[in-house]
């Protein structure tokens, strides 16, 4: 736990953090809003006393009532991992600015998150599905997507359908509406 | 009649085939003998003696065709085994002794596979391209001098024939690649065209120096000129030419490190991607026939063709010993020959088996006998081979020719087991920037040397 980093983050991003800076083991966690995300990330990446240059991971989370996007960052200035959680994405139309301007390598991670959660990263140039086939309609890692044999967990106690389609309005940002005939 | 029908009913299927055939042979045999002896034989002989070159050509072509397939089999087996050994593997070891029949069985498998052609392929070209490839590589065998007087055609423009026919292979590869309707095939075919055409030039130029030196384009005469001691081999007079020829012929035969036409990690199998069954077999055989061909050509041009590296007669002459010939008329032995034939194998087998039975190993009697019999056969073949080698010049020639050619085949296989392949631009750059100037240099130096030597 790096107390210094906590202090630095609190003073630097005062008023922009949603909730307190949390620390556990070797991780420091901040919650930010989607509107401030790019600005905060730029600051984290560029400023000399932060210098979080390496994007270790980008993960989407479906908490059940909202969506989150989690970034893990590494910097040589601190022994901690920094976890940035972009909070409060509505489930029916989750949108968040893309970080491909800062880290072009985030492109595929954002594609994966879009594929699994339907979170739309505004500004990502190539936001298509990456794992699932192009004519696939649902988002498998969402919490309302039940596995076929996961009978015990489903509300009715019976087997649900494999795919509960939960397509947000305009699932893909720049899309020409697809009319693919599936054989 | 009942007896006949009953015994017919009792016969096995094989019997039902064999017995009528035997009867047929019994009846037709005498008739055929008489017919051939009195009418057909003389007619054929007459026809043949009237058209001797054509007959010679046909015989040679048949021989070459029959010869090329086993050669390909041997080289395939050799490649599997040698590369396996170099990779610390065992290689094929299930079919035949030490897996020796593996390539034959693989050939049979290829024969029995479905002959498939893609929907959009150009059927005609697709079918005939492998045949063209195979034929052009086999046709070059015609002028190879396997031994003294053991040559299909003593063409006086042999070298020219060689390169003109050899250059046709690329047409087959290009056709195969184009007609397959596959992008990998197309790329492979185009690569083949670019590569083979590029390397044809240094290949030919490297031999021009040799031709200047030898004063002939007859491959057989080239062989004759290199007889005697191994210092007469052209490799010692044309070392640069030999090196260029060697490198360019690797590319000609599409072997590693220049096997870009079928680079499996890039373009799957190149022009052969869509082929299956015996059509693929043709392409496959053609590749290995080509390997043998370029090895044989290196041997012929630069490494003394069929000539032994040591001139035994010269050594013997130096010590004032008459040339050895084993002239031995078996007929003079008379009845002793018969007895020897009857008794000698038995005695020799027993004699060779004895050390294994009584010796340290203490093998059981049957094992000792089997070992003895095998040893006896080996000894017998060895003795017979030695007699044949000394008495019959072409056997000596063919032995040395194949030894040398297969040594080069081994080198090809060895290189395949060691090297990664080059990139296409490096390949082309090497041909045009290094090999071609080197070949031209070789040519000029040779020409200048000839002029200088003649003017002295």
């Amino acid at each position, binding site marked *: 736990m790096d107390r210094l980093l906590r202090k630095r983050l609190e003073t630097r991003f005062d008023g922009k953090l949603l909730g307190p800076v949390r620390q556990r083991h070797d991780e420091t966690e901040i919650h930010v809003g989607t509107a401030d995300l790019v600005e905060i990330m730029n600051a984290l990446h560029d400023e000399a006393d932060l210098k979080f240059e390496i994007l270790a991971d980008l993960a989407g989370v479906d908490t059940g009532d909202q969506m989150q996007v989690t970034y893990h960052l590494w910097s040589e200035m601190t022994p901690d991992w920094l976890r940035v959680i972009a909070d409060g994405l509505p489930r029916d139309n989750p949108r968040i600015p893309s970080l491909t301007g800062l880290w072009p390598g985030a492109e595929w991670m954002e594609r994966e998150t879009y594929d699994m959660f339907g979170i739309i990263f505004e500004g990502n140039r190539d936001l298509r599905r990456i794992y699932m086939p192009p004519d696939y309609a649902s988002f498998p890692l969402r919490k309302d997507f039940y596995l076929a044999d996961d009978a015990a967990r489903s509300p009715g106690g019976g087997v649900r359908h494999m795919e509960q389609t939960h397509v947000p309005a305009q699932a893909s940002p720049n899309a020409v509406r697809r009319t693919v005939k599936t054989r | 009649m009942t007896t006949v029908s009953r015994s017919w009913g009792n016969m096995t299927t094989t019997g039902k085939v064999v017995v009528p055939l035997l009867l047929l042979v019994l009846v037709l045999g005498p008739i055929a003998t008489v017919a051939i002896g009195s009418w057909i034989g003389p007619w054929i002989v007459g026809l043949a003696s009237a058209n001797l070159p054509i007959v010679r050509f046909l015989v040679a072509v048949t021989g070459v065709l029959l010869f090329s397939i086993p050669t390909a089999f041997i080289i395939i087996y050799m490649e599997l085994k*040698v590369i396996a*050994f*170099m*990779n*610390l*593997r*065992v290689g094929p*070891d299930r079919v035949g002794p030490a897996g020796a029949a593996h390539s034959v069985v693989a050939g049979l498998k290829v024969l029995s596979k479905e002959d498939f052609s893609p929907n959009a392929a150009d059927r005609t070209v697709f079918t005939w391209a492998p045949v063209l490839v195979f034929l052009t590589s086999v046709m070059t065998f015609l002028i190879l001098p396997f031994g003294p007087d053991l040559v299909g055609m003593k063409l006086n423009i042999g070298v020219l024939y060689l390169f003109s026919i050899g250059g046709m292979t690329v047409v087959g590869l290009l056709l195969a690649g184009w007609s397959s309707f596959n992008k990998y095939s197309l790329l492979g075919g185009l690569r083949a065209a670019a590569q083979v055409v590029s390397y044809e030039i240094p290949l030919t130029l490297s031999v021009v120096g040799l031709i200047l030196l030898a004063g002939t384009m007859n491959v057989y005469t080239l062989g004759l000129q290199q007889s005697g001691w191994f210092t007469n081999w052209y490799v010692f007079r044309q070392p640069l030419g030999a090196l260029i020829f060697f490198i360019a012929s690797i590319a000609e035969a599409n072997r590693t490190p220049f096997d870009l036409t079928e680079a499996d990690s890039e373009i799957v199998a190149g022009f052969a991607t869509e082929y299956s069954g015996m059509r693929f077999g043709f392409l496959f055989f053609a590749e290995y026939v080509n390997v043998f061909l370029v090895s044989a050509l290196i041997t012929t041009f630069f490494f003394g063709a069929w000539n032994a590296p040591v001139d035994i007669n010269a050594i013997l002459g130096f010590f004032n010993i008459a040339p050895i010939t084993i002239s031995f008329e078996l007929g003079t032995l008379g009845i002793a020959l018969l007895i020897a034939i009857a008794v000698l194998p038995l005695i020799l087998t027993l004699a060779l088996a004895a050390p294994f039975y009584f010796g340290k190993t203490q093998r059981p009697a049957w094992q000792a006998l089997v070992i003895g019999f095998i040893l006896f056969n080996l000894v017998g073949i060895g003795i017979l081979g030695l007699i044949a080698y000394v008495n019959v010049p072409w056997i000596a020639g063919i032995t040395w020719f194949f030894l040398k050619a297969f040594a080069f085949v081994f080198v090809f296989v*060895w*290189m395949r*087991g*060691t*090297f990664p392949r080059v990139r296409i631009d490096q390949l082309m750059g090497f041909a045009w920037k290094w090999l071609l100037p080197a070949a031209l240099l070789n040519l000029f130096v040779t020409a200048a040397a000839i002029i200088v030597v003649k003017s002295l």
Partner: protein
Amino acid sequence: MTTIPGMGLVRGMGLTLTRFFQPKATIKWPEEQADVAPKFRGRLQLLYDEYGTLKCETCFQCAQACPIECIDMGGVDTRGRFHVHWGPPETYGERREESAVRRSGRPVADTAFTHFEGIDLLALDVILDAHDHDPREMLAILEETQAAYGYLPVAALKHISRTTGAWYAQIYGTASYYRHLRFEPPAAAGVPEAGQAQIAAEAAFTTRLDAALGIGGQVR
């Protein structure tokens, strides 16, 4: 890269040529068996539970669920009556009923597995004492058990497991790996199983007697 151009190529060819003559790494299966560590668990075996019945209920759920149909069940059923095989539901409906019966706790006669009956464990105890109940000497224990009983009875294996603390599955895995260990009594001519058990018991008794007297068996 070396300073002389082409030297690296020549050296590479030298290396492959030396490899050409070196001993080969291939294991010529099945003539040769690979040298597998005792802990290796890559071998699939159906195990018996603590009551001596097959742990597999033959419910075919695994075969049914396997997406690529790589699980195939076959063999003689636990009654030794007919071949069970994965197939349409009517072929395994009967098996499912039988499984249900077994699960309910009622005894199901398993005539094919009489050799799971209790055996005289005296001889085994002697062997285990000699090895100080040490699971690291498992192979020796198993070999001596087989020498005493003629084979490895399931009850003996379970006893070994209980006293040495080694898992039954591990003992079973070890035993099933070695070819010279067997789970079935050898098809000895004329000696019925009961007789064999008798012989084994006698042998065990004499062994124990020898041990008690300290003569170690060399007198007989």
